[in-house]
């Protein structure tokens, strides 16, 4: 289990990195934390002729807050996302999700940008990006551009990123005050990719309304966001259940080599219910 040969590049600036990527096109592959690409290289499932190491781009390791969003640099490690005080305070759902990625040593190396570009359909950070309609900030030879998370993720391990482009940061919309959240990840073992993961946010709308955002990971080729559900605050659980069930029923879920679709579908429903219950409890706590 040893990688095929590759040339190694270690740019010290973003521009230099983009230049190398532009020169080698699809023969080049950036490496960030290496926690997903490393195994693929070692198993020769990925065999780029050029590996471009982004670890010197320390300017991409940051957490920056603004009025409407929290921006996190692409080279920010999962451990920092999981533990940064400003994220824990303002976007605890993201911190909670990041804390479940892999294992402690993996989180010391793995990066936000790496996770997004790797685009495993069951991964946590793509799920939160899709849930929140985050914006992926990208830079290429022609300068920066912004891509909505929903467009960024195309399919299994496929994103809309040119071979000479780099993800530089992700801008997460700041959740409204008093938002309740829930995150449920179901896997066989601690640290494994989810069989199904569900992230949910409940945000108050006006004095008597509430809007639910729900996204699911692990059930299709990319994270899926359900259409937002607006309800009266005092709506009964059957009303919620009916509106969620109709959307769930429309999801296309396929059997895979280990997990029957029927199981995955029911698991998704059950985790969604749990995530919403957790979100409701948190929203209530925020109110009182």
């Amino acid at each position, binding site marked *: *289990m*040893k*990688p*095929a*040969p*590759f*040339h*190694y590049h*270690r740019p010290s600036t973003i521009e230099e990195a983009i230049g190398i990527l532009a020169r080698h096109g699809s023969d080049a592959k950036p*490496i960030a934390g*290496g*926690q997903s690409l*490393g*195994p693929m*290289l*070692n*198993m020769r499932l990925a065999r780029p002729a050029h*590996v471009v*190491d982004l*670890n010197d781009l320390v300017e991409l390791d940051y957490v920056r807050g603004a009025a409407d969003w929290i921006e996190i640099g692409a080279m920010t490690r999962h*451990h920092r996302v999981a533990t940064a005080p400003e994220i824990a305070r303002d976007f605890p759902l993201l911190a909670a999700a990041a804390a479940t990625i*892999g*294992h*402690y*040593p*993996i989180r*010391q*190396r793995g990066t936000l940008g790496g996770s997004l570009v790797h685009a495993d359909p069951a991964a946590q950070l793509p799920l939160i990006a899709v849930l929140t309609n985050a914006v992926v900030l990208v830079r290429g030879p022609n300068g920066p551009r912004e891509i909505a998370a929903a467009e960024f993720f195309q399919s299994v391990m496929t994103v809309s990123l040119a071979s000479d482009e780099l993800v530089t940061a992700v801008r997460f919309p700041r959740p409204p005050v008093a938002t309740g959240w829930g995150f449920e990840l179901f896997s066989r*073992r*601690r*640290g494994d990719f989810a069989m199904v993961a569900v992230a949910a946010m409940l945000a108050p709308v006006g004095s008597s309304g509430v809007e639910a955002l729900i996204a699911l990971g692990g059930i299709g080729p990319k994270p899926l966001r359900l259409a937002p559900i607006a309800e009266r605050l005092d709506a009964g659980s059957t009303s919620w259940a009916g509106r969620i069930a109709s959307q769930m029923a429309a999801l296309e879920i396929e059997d895979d080599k280990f997990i029957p679709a029927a199981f995955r579908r029911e698991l998704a429903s059950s985790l969604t219910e749990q995530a919403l219950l957790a979100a409701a409890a948190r929203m209530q706590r925020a109110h009182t």
Partner: protein
Amino acid sequence: MTERQMISLTVNGQVHEVAVEPRRLLSDVLRDDLGLTGTHVGCEHGVCGACTILIDDQPARSCLTYAVQMEGHEVTTIEAIGRDGLSPFQQAMHEEHGLQCGFCTPGIIMTFEAYLRDNPNPDEAEIRDVLSGNLCRCTGYQPIVAAVLKAAARQREERQ
């Protein structure tokens, strides 16, 4: 094959000049080029944790790291731990029978040397979460958890 390149590696405070192919795993360079065989290789795809070392004082998989990447960084391996007598965690592992075949042990030591430094008062659930990144086939983990708790308590006492 690609050209070998000379790199300068700082391991356990010592600087080594080695010629490596860029694809060469840090785990292989530590073991075969530097003779630091305490770092074990159990899967080479980042799951088992046997090869865990410290990069700039934080635990990382040496099998998912290429040695060329380590220029300008400090690598610490099991050989640096307990040179002048067992560390509190190593001693607790000994007392609690936290190892049998010992193959996974260096990776576990490295993980918790760093973790206990930053988290002096972990509870059992937190310890198990961190330990979940290291597979052990012999012990059933229970004595390792006990060893972490014991080492943490001792370290807290020492700091008081």
